[in-house]
């Protein structure tokens, strides 16, 4: 019996650990990658502790503009969906009983309608309407901000409505009647009685609506027009090439969320405690060096701790310089690369000899898209190269074999800004570089395993700096050579 309980406790603990690892692990790892100087977001080959990705992020104007768009759209959505949700919930409490379930079904339905459908229907409808009403409405009805606010509010209002309904269940309509009876107008009764009562619900509904708007992708991706939101920009970046500046942004968002959650919880616990004290419940008044609001409030403690960690981190950012570490890493990489280049040159010479016997040279450094043969042979190689497929937009779209080499280069380009460290951060060779980093750093010298796959590894880091079009050719050559 006893061992049974122990066993079930262990099982429970294990289950909790697995569940929360699944839930939080990826977020923790993602946050950590923001501080690794490795240009691929990872933590396993940990290059250097660095803040450079925050720098990259701060200089990314597209992201900054997208944040502004997101805030504007978020505020518009908050206003519209809070107003509609509140009105809808008030009507729900007054509607005829036999109509109630129909009405409820209609206003809850947007939650269940796929966001894709909402986005499409919004765009289609307003496009049609502007055609009916004439060109005067054209500008507004095709405006990304306008459409996104409407599209998002369609379902976010359902969320806010649910928040309001929960709060309204505890409202005594007699209060409004009492106010009217005392001479208040309907508007006064609403403003002075109902609204103050609903204030906490309005606040949480507004936060909910803003966050839901801020993170919405499915609907916005059809409606944003010329005003991409942060989520849209992020999705573009993530789809066409990942780099740690996204991690840096993620770290900021995660931090803000953690901060918000802890602050809310601390506030909640503080209130519960105050309530308990007011009700005369005995609160342990032990001697403590902690200030009052921290006592018996783990959330407040965690909040202080967390703030401390974040502040320390950013204080470190001001004084700490990863230059030396990076220089070392770079030196190691260069040594590594040089070795590889030698090897490659050797192989290339071999190949050239073979090819000269076969026929025309496909490695003309013309800068044009790689010849068909190169591209097609590059494909299977790309599948095995660690990052080839990841960065290929064609793969993401599911259109295999259509990603031409120059495309790849230009898509990867905006993902990262040039940095003072030259080739390491050169956007053009990001994919390559990352690949080199990923295995090159795992040991001082390339391991036996890496050597075995050597032929499939991407081209040397410097080869691609000069010409993105070259890149595919070299990769293809390497693949073919194998």
């Amino acid at each position, binding site marked *: 019996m006893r061992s049974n309980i122990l066993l079930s406790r262990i099982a429970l603990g294990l*289950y909790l650990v697995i569940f*929360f690892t699944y839930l939080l692990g990826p977020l923790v790892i993602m946050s950590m990658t923001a501080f690794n100087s490795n240009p691929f977001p990872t933590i396993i080959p940990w290059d250097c502790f660095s803040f450079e990705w925050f720098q990259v992020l701060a200089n990314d104007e597209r992201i900054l503009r997208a944040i502004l768009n997101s805030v504007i759209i978020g505020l518009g959505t908050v206003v519209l969906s809070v107003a509609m949700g509140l009105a809808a919930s008030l009507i729900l409490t007054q509607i005829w*009983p036999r109509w109630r379930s129909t009405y409820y079904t209609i206003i*809850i339905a947007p939650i269940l309608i796929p966001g894709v*459908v909402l986005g499409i229907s919004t765009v289609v*409808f307003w496009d049609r309407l502007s055609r009916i009403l004439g060109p005067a409405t054209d500008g507004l009805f095709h405006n990304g901000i306008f459409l996104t606010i409407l599209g998002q509010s369609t379902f976010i209002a359902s969320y806010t409505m649910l928040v309001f309904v929960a709060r309204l269940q505890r409202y005594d309509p007699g209060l409004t009647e009492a106010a009217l009876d005392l001479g208040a107008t309907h508007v006064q009764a609403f403003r002075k009685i109902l609204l103050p009562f609903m204030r906490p619900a309005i606040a949480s509904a507004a936060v909910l609506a803003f966050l839901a708007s801020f993170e919405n992708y499915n609907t916005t991706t059809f409606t944003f027009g010329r005003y991409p939101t942060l989520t849209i920009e*992020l999705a573009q970046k993530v789809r066409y090439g990942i780099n740690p500046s996204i991690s840096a942004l993620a770290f900021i968002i*995660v931090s803000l969320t953690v901060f918000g959650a802890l602050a809310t919880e601390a506030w909640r616990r503080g209130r519960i405690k105050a309530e308990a004290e007011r009700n005369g419940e005995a609160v342990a008044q032990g001697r403590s060096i902690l200030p009052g609001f921290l006592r018996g409030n783990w959330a407040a403690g965690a909040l202080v701790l967390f703030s401390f960690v974040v502040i320390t981190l950013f204080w470190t950012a001001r004084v700490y310089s990863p230059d030396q570490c990076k220089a070392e890493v770079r030196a190691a990489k260069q040594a590594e690369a040089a070795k590889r280049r030698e090897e490659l040159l050797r192989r290339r010479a071999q190949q050239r000899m073979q090819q000269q016997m076969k026929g025309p040279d496909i490695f003309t450094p013309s800068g044009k898209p790689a010849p068909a043969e190169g591209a097609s042979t590059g494909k299977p190689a790309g599948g095995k190269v660690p990052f080839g497929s990841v960065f290929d937009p064609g793969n993401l779209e599911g259109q295999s074999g259509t990603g031409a080499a120059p495309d790849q280069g230009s898509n990867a380009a905006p993902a990262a800004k040039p940095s003072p460290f030259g080739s390491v951060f050169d956007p053009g060779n990001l994919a390559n570089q990352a690949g080199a980093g*990923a295995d090159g750093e795992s040991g001082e010298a390339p391991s036996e*395993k890496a050597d075995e796959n050597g032929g499939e590894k991407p081209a040397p880091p410097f080869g691609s700096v000069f010409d993105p079009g070259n890149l595919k050719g070299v990769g293809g050559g390497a693949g073919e050579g194998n």
Partner: protein
Amino acid sequence: MGKTVASKAEKLSISTLLISIIPIVIIVLVLFDTLVSDGFSAASSLIVGLIILWVAVICGVLATELFSDFFRTNGRLLGSVMLGLVAFWIIVLILLPQLSMLDYSFRYNLPPSEQGGPKDVYTLANYRHLIYGAGGGEGTYNTVDLMVFLRTIIAAMAVTVADLILCYPLAYYLGQSRGSGFVRLLVVLLIIPYWINEILRAFALKIVFADGGILNAAMMKLGLIDQPIDFIRADVALYAGLGYAYILLMLFPMYNAIESLDRNQIEAARDMGASWIRIHRRIVIPHAKPGITSGMTMVFMLSAGALAAPQILGGPSSLWFTQLVYQWFNGSLNWQQGAAYAIVLLVASITIVLTFMKIFKVNMGDIGK
């Protein structure tokens, strides 16, 4: 406004009758007009205007009569604002866009110059395309798109079930051990990922599952594998990502439902010698049914309609149905075809949800509680 409906009904019918005379006159006029002028003219557009006016009048009369009690309890100004907002939401944001998308899905993709012209007729071609493909011919089926559709639906179901199994123990544990700081801590830990951007969550999983990602790097370093496993191509990343994206929408409704279950019921059952399995089957699950259904509905609908996770985590050879919709819309700029696919997705997923709700005898009203 509850109970006075019946007494209003008599008055209503009289005034409706009076107003109904106007449209009859208008319809007669329209018929006369089309017979004489053979097509639309200035007069007919005047008549269209009159019809709109009539609709507005009848709506106004209906509103003031049906809602007279409503206006008395809420006041004219506030009542109008409330009704206006809800009408805007339901009609302009929910119903009309859905209807116009439905309408679009039955039309050809024509250049703007031909829209409204003789070629602009209703057609089933867009739907036929899903089944028979571009040729629309006999015998050949659009196997690619149909497979994508089937795979989306089945995978969404699988994700739903997986989330259910994963969440039930935690929901039960959280719901039944109340009050302690540890449980609150767990809840806070749950809420945090809930508010992290969907894209970032997918990105986090991509970091983990990518070819050179943490998982591969770690396993290779540990010597478990000697070549990176392509989790993306194997769709492991996609399914993990979908399950990950919506898992909390499964957990929270269940947690709320189980939390409201009186602990004494479980203890009473245990006292009577019921086994754990029986307690869950006979007491906990029936009580939590609205929460479970709510969670399953949300997870299924959101997974089937997911776009971000498949775009970011999906393998090159496996498409999600929403991606087809996206391509038609943003890639091929064929809105009509995209609308048809979207309608198919909407109808299919709602049908599935309603069927399951019918089987498990759950009401719509339980959703969202």
